């Protein structure tokens, strides 16, 4: 078991960990679904749990929220066990299935979850209406949820998670099944919540989501955390170098000798140049300058950066969608 609290420093700044998971195991039958998982989420931080379907993300989130009990290990929510009702009041959990009641309206669903959090009365109705407005659901709050689209249900589920203004948000695949427009809208709301100081843990199998939102990423495969770090740390450590593709009006004179000066791996094919770089910010200006200095002219320059998908592929030998 790893003691994470003592290690919770970034750049010498001690962070306030709101959620700590230490050495958690969970077995269903003869299969270990979660294996010795440790992680932490700090105040004002978005952490992603990135892994393919069936990696154990949902089970881990259920353990963190106290829905399931771990076989061993522990979860601390501001130092409290998730079984402690005080700890549960600090958490807002949005499961993969939004967990809404189809025969209630949007407003009634919100009031149901508000009451479960111990909130009732006119002020709560105002807060509910405010949240529904933020989610763009004001006009539909009187409609039965069974008439909502999948995206609307997801947004309502997220609104219900925010009803008691929790310090920790646990979101399981928050944008699955959403169209790109709605997905970006939800990302905007999540980032807004981060700015208000919430600790946010997102389980996702979308690498773009993890990259776009996360301060840190835990990569999970077959119940085990196989790597963690900021997206750029993970990519620089595990992903192949970026590829700079350049289409030229004309090649620089003595192209081979010129490019060798860069010290990078490259290929030249007719008027196209392909350069592998582990530091794009440094190498792109150097490459362009060198081409121009040697009489070449750039027509199009395209940089293909590695993704977390590449990181996952490198670590597990499989893609995230597999």
């Amino acid at each position: 078991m790893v003691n994470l609290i003592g290690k919770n420093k970034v750049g010498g700044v001690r962070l306030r960990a709101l959620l700590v998971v230490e050495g958690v195991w969970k077995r269903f039958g003869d299969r270990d679904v979660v294996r010795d998982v440790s992680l932490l989420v700090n105040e004002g931080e978005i952490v992603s749990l990135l892994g393919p379907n069936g990696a154990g993300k949902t089970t881990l989130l259920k353990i963190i929220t106290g829905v399931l009990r771990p076989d061993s290990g522990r979860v601390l929510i501001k130092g409290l066990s998730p079984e402690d009702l005080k700890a549960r009041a600090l958490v807002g959990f949005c499961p993969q299935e939004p967990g809404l009641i189809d025969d209630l309206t949007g407003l009634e669903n919100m009031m149901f979850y508000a009451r479960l959090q111990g909130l009732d009365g006119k002020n709560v109705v105002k807060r509910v209406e405010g949240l529904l407005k933020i989610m763009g659901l004001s006009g539909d709050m009187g409609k039965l949820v069974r008439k909502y689209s999948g995206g609307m249900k997801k947004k309502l589920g997220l609104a219900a998670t925010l009803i008691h203004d929790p310090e920790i948000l646990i979101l399981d695949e928050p944008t699955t099944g959403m169209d790109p427009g709605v997905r970006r809208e939800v990302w905007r709301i999540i980032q807004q919540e981060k700015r208000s100081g919430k600790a946010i843990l997102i389980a996702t199998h979308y690498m773009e989501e993890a990259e776009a939102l996360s301060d840190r990423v835990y990569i999970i495969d077959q119940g085990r955390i196989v790597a963690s770090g900021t997206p750029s740390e993970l990519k620089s450590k595990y992903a192949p170098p970026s590829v700079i593709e350049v289409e030229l009006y004309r090649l620089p004179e003595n192209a081979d000798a010129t490019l060798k000066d860069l010290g990078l791996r490259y290929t030249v094919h007719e008027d196209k140049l392909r350069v592998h770089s582990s530091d794009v910010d440094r190498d792109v200006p150097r490459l362009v300058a060198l081409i121009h200095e040697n009489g070449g002219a750039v027509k199009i320059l395209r940089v293909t950066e590695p993704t977390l998908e590449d990181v996952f592929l490198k670590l597990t030998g499989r893609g995230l969608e597999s």
Partner: protein
Amino acid sequence: MKWCRVKAFFISGLKTTFRDRASIFWVFIWPIILVFMTAYVFIPPSVGQPLTLDMGVVNYDHSEAPFNGTAFIEVLKIIEYNGTKLFNVRVYEDEDLLLGDLTKGELDVGIVIPSGFGNNLTFSQAKLKVYVSGGNVYSIQVNRAMVSEFLRRFSIEAGLRKVEMSLRYMNMSYVPSKIPTQGPWGDIGFLKFIRNYMLGLVEPINVTIIEKVPEALATRPAVIGWYVIGALGMMMLYTGFIIGSTAIVEEKERGSLDRILSTPVKESEMLAGRSLAGLIVLLLSSLAIVITGVYAIGAKIDWNPLSVTDWLVPLNLIMIGLMTIGIGYMLSLLARTSRGASSMGTTLGLILSFTAGVWFPKEWMPAPMRVLADMFPITWALDTIRDIVVFNIGLGEALTGTVRNVIATAAIFAVGVIAYKKTLRKYAEL
């Protein structure tokens, strides 16, 4: 326990029930249909009234006697019992035509009056041929019994008249000297003695049959009242079982259980909210059944808000509700899907309705099966309600039954609560 959390489950439970068409049907429409069926199918308006049989008659008698076949047919046409005609008489030309209609099921009974019937009735012994339609065992028994009883009574009446006529023509000089006209009956004189003797030949035993039913069930409204309470019990059984057995699995299926379990809600708050919602649904349905029973089909259900005894009725209804929901929670341990839980609740509810003295009187059942009815606490509570509203028992008796029901309810609901918590924990330990 925080009320607003209980309220969350209470309000959502009520709203989801009243917005679901299937629930509305099973909780309100079906019991009301059952109440109407009680009044018009199981206990039709004709119950307690004599049947009227369709009778075909062939008359081959054309004798000159004062009471012949034609006069007999007139009697058949006008004879009544309690204001109801006993026979719809249709006269046939010959026996073959009569038999044709009888075998087609158009007649219940056929009578063939042979030639010489009138003369034989007056001076000898008359004969009649009677056919009884045999559609089913029940109808053949009823038709046979009715026509036999009528002919037996008619035969006795004819015999009595023959005695009166015989005495009118008896010559007093024929009086034998040794006939005892004195005895335990006193000195009644020879003629009266002979008359009594001949009456005894016609009808050796004059039987008086008196129908005696419990005063409370003596009327059709009271019988309907008994069954309306039965319909209420049946609804409570299957609905309560379904409410209890689907409570957790339904939340699990719609994905709301994970979210609920992640909130600071206590098991006791969930349980209280759900049970309260279920109880209100059951009580509203019971009210609808009773109102329909009393005002639409005339059931005798006496309830006086000024009577302390009558206030034990709602208390016993609450007991039944809690017991059925409690048993439902026990069933939830076995439920894997809400559809399975619902089917299990309905099946068990209907079986117990018919076997535990809820819908059918337990006296109708074979002795070994009565044991279940005698030991089933829901039947105890229903019988207490029947005792109060149909049989009008006193406070002492009602209170004794109610105390027993309260104890049984506490025990059953407590086991239900344990089962509910175990089901929740089973889910968390998955």
